[in-house]
């Protein structure tokens, strides 16, 4: 398995240097930057700094700008991870290399882990750029619990990775990337508490929030970064995130295998 991780990592790095559509990179950063700017301007000029009193109760903090900036940054990080991993197999299919892969006894775990570790370099860079930009517009990191933030970061990568496997099999099923990914990203941005607390949502939408790993991940990340809280205060969220990850991992790895077979059968 390790050799496949390494080989996939190296392969993707080479391909990235030769041919990565750098507009993707810019696009991801801009998504985050736009969220920050949008929040900043509406907060400053539309609400004139006055916040709905419920916000403090729902969000556990008064710092709306930090809230939105972290939301935007983690959202675009989730989107990058989801996109890079979920598109990997369908890209092989489109480029005609899927059969070369499937004819070998390759380790799927190794393949996907290689893909995700390779792209973490790039997505982390995107994340750092967005956060740095956020600092200019009022992100407050003075109380940050660094250790907790890193731990949640790692857990979140794992959960986005698992969700990506599931998304990947949907893409293979519909042989589409554009509609599947953008539908998911739209729903995610709306229901996971990216720009406003989930508590504002009507009850019938809330089940959607609970199946998005981004939701517990954001809740924890914010309290650890903005309030400097300990993770031990958020055991429920940790469990929530882990249960979602394992469920997605389970469904995703079964369905992706199934979809591989299907796509090979239907295409010639």
């Amino acid at each position, binding site marked *: 398995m390790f*050799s*496949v991780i*390494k*080989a*996939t990592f*190296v*392969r993707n790095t*080479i*391909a990235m240097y*030769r*041919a990565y559509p750098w507009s993707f990179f810019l696009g991801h950063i801009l998504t985050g930057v736009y969220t920050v700017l949008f929040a900043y301007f509406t907060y400053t000029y539309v609400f004139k700094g006055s916040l709905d009193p419920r916000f403090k109760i729902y969000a556990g903090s008064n710092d709306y700008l930090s809230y939105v900036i972290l939301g935007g940054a983690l959202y675009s990080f989730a989107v990058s991870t989801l996109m890079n991993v979920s598109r990997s197999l369908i890209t092989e299919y489109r*480029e*005609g*290399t899927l*059969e*070369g*892969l*499937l*004819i*070998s*006894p*390759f380790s799927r775990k190794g393949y996907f882990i290689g893909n995700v570790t390779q792209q973490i370099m790039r997505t982390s860079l995107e994340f750092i750029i967005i956060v740095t930009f956020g600092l200019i517009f009022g992100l407050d990191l003075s109380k940050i619990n660094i250790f907790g933030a890193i731990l949640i970061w790692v857990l979140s990568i794992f959960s986005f990775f698992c969700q990506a496997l599931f998304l990947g099999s949907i893409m293979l099923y519909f042989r589409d990337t554009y509609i599947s990914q953008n539908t998911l990203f739209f729903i995610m941005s709306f229901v996971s508490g990216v720009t406003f607390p989930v508590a504002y949502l009507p009850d019938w939408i809330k089940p959607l929030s609970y199946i998005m790993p981004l939701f517990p991940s954001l809740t924890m990340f914010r309290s650890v970064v903005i309030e400097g809280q300990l993770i031990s205060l958020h055991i429920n969220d940790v469990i929530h995130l882990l249960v979602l990850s394992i469920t997605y991992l389970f469904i995703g790895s079964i369905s992706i295998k199934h979809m591989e*077979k299907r796509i*090979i*059968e*239907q295409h*010639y």
Partner: protein
Amino acid sequence: MLIVNDVSKIYRTKQRLGWFKSEWQENIAVNNLSFKVEPGQIVGLLGINGAGKTTTIKMCSTLLEPSSGTIFVDGMDIVKNDKKVKSIVNMIAGGERMLYWKLTAKENLRYFGSLYGLKEAELDHRITSLLREVGLDIKSNIPVEQFSKGMKQRLQIARGLINNPKYLFLDEPTLGLDASIAKHLRNYVKELAKEKGKAIILTSHYMKEVEELCDEVLIIDKGSLVMQDKPERLTNLFFKENTLKITVSEIPDSLHTKLNNEISQNKGTWQIQSTDDDEYDLIIKSEKDMTNSIVSLLAYHNLRILNIVSEKPSLEDVILLMSERTSA
């Protein structure tokens, strides 16, 4: 040994009937096919377009699961033991797929080799020798997208050998290759079977290739096996006749009786056609090759022979005949 036992493959495809209506259609691509391939043997799969050759090859190489029947490789079921089987089989298809265009030849082979869990040192060694074998050693550091079609195809061949497979499936491997490279490849394939003991299945639309390489030929039509034999025996089965065409400047009437006697003794038929150049073609069809006796007869009568063509039926004729029969 590869044992294909009563294998069928049914493709199910959705047929659109209208906006919301669709219906499943079944297409039997391979129909109760059975055959065996032993180490060192090259077996040819022949058949017209759509006969089911690629489908058979994809099943043998684990890419497709049979709808029914079993395939065993070295005693292992290819569905139940797919990981183990995958490590000793490989497939090479004609065309430009199965390669990463952004990577160089070397990087491609390195990546595919790692999927088989090969150790670095062994992989390095194998890559070097494979690239030399397919004549790409001096181009090994150029991205594949800058390769010509033939170069991609040769790299594809190296890819198919990266795990040193015991079983190799070749689906039109010389498609689009120029004559000299195709010839080189044929020699190489022969060597892989005869010297390295690999079991090989080959499909090709170049009959010469099949005749030259294969120890045994399976002719399939609409997914079913119609004939299975050595290539020379197959042609004999369908065509018992040799055709001999001798061009002469004249044929005196006095010779007709003698010719007739000689040819009918051999149960042959003959005719004379005059050509545009005021010459005559003597065309003789017979089971036995009559070149010697006819030439000496003509020489005895001091006739000048301008040209001799002796034609043996080829596998190509067999396939043509078959497709005429099925479409009739």
